[in-house]
């Protein structure tokens, strides 16, 4: 039976609560596998495990629960060891590396920040910033009936200005929040966001980080920031 692995911690890490459920339906009980100075949070792997909502949540939940008791290195969802022995061998071989990462991440959490534009407000913003574009828009409006081509031309110029603004705002968010964080890591690209960044934040500094986010929100009302955290340090384990 293969072994599902959630995360890696020091062998002195408190054991998870007995009723902690992992992936699978019914949830497989989470147990601890100790090897040298490390331990891994594992459960039996259900047959035919797929990335279903319930299982993704279970993975996240186990890491959150265990992470509340001390530093845990999160595994990516879906890592299956053929058996407990293989996992123990990996832990023994990479012990120094994992211990180094555990030390580096002690007392720190990940905050993920995704930014997008509020459409109405970014349009106001690009018109306010570009007198020529604003004049063009005002001329179009005052003419009343604008030709299809005229609208396309205006719209394309506005869209270009919005794209430039996206790049500027991606930099702005990184710079504004970087100072309140220990490290920053670019998240996976997605067309859904103008930027997707993960910040490593010392727990002692989390209020400062949240304040920095608030400051960006107040100063840049056309930006919509989605902040999620504190999270297990997914982006800082390698």
């Amino acid at each position, binding site marked *: 039976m293969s072994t599902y692995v959630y995360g890696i911690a020091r062998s002195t890490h408190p054991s998870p609560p007995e009723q902690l459920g992992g992936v699978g339906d019914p949830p497989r009980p989470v147990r601890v596998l100790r090897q040298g100075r490390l331990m891994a949070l594992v459960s039996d792997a259900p047959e035919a495990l797929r990335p279903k909502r319930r299982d993704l949540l279970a993975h996240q939940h186990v890491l959150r629960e265990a992470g509340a008791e001390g530093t845990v290195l999160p595994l990516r969802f879906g*890592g299956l060891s053929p058996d407990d022995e293989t996992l123990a061998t990996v832990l023994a071989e990479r012990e120094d590396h994992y211990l180094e990462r555990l030390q580096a991440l002690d007392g720190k959490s990940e905050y*993920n920040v995704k930014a*997008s534009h509020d459409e109405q*407000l970014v349009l106001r913003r690009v018109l306010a*910033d570009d007198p020529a574009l604003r004049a063009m828009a005002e001329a179009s409006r005052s003419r009343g009936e604008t030709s299809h081509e005229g609208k396309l031309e205006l719209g394309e110029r506005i869209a270009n200005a919005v*794209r430039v603004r996206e790049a500027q705002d991606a930099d702005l968010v990184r710079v504004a929040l970087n100072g309140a964080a220990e490290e920053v890591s670019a998240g996976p690209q997605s067309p859904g966001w103008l930027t997707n960044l993960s910040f490593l934040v010392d727990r002692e500094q989390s209020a400062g980080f949240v304040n920095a986010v608030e400051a960006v929100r107040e100063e840049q009302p056309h930006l919509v920031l989605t902040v999620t955290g504190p999270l297990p340090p997914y982006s800082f384990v390698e």
Partner: protein
Amino acid sequence: MTVVPAQQAGGSGGSSSLYDVLELVLDRGIVIDAFVRVSLVGIEILKIDVRVVVASVDTYLRFAEACNRLDLEAGPRKNPGLPDLVGQMTESGARGKSKGALSGAAQSISEVFSKDHDEEPESKPQSRRTSSRSRKEESE
């Protein structure tokens, strides 16, 4: 401008935050070479666009129309972008928008998952290398 820390922290538990970090759970974190990876077929959700594609004719037209309306609302002011003119609207507008986008994504995800559940009883864990091939077959 009021803030609601619980909402903005977002990570205090519950399923809603999962959608905001799905790509981290699936794309970040330790990978161990000696392990088998669960196939990620059915997770194309990550590529689904929750934001408008800026470079399209539809967007050009919508932006042009929107600008006409903006000017009518704001009147002939020199600085339509001044934050204090629109501060009130910013809060509610931004909130509403991000909620809409997120619940849209959430819906798409649950559709993917339920589809996955109904139509794929046969799949077993497999190495990640094969996932793109399987995905292609599935779409054919």
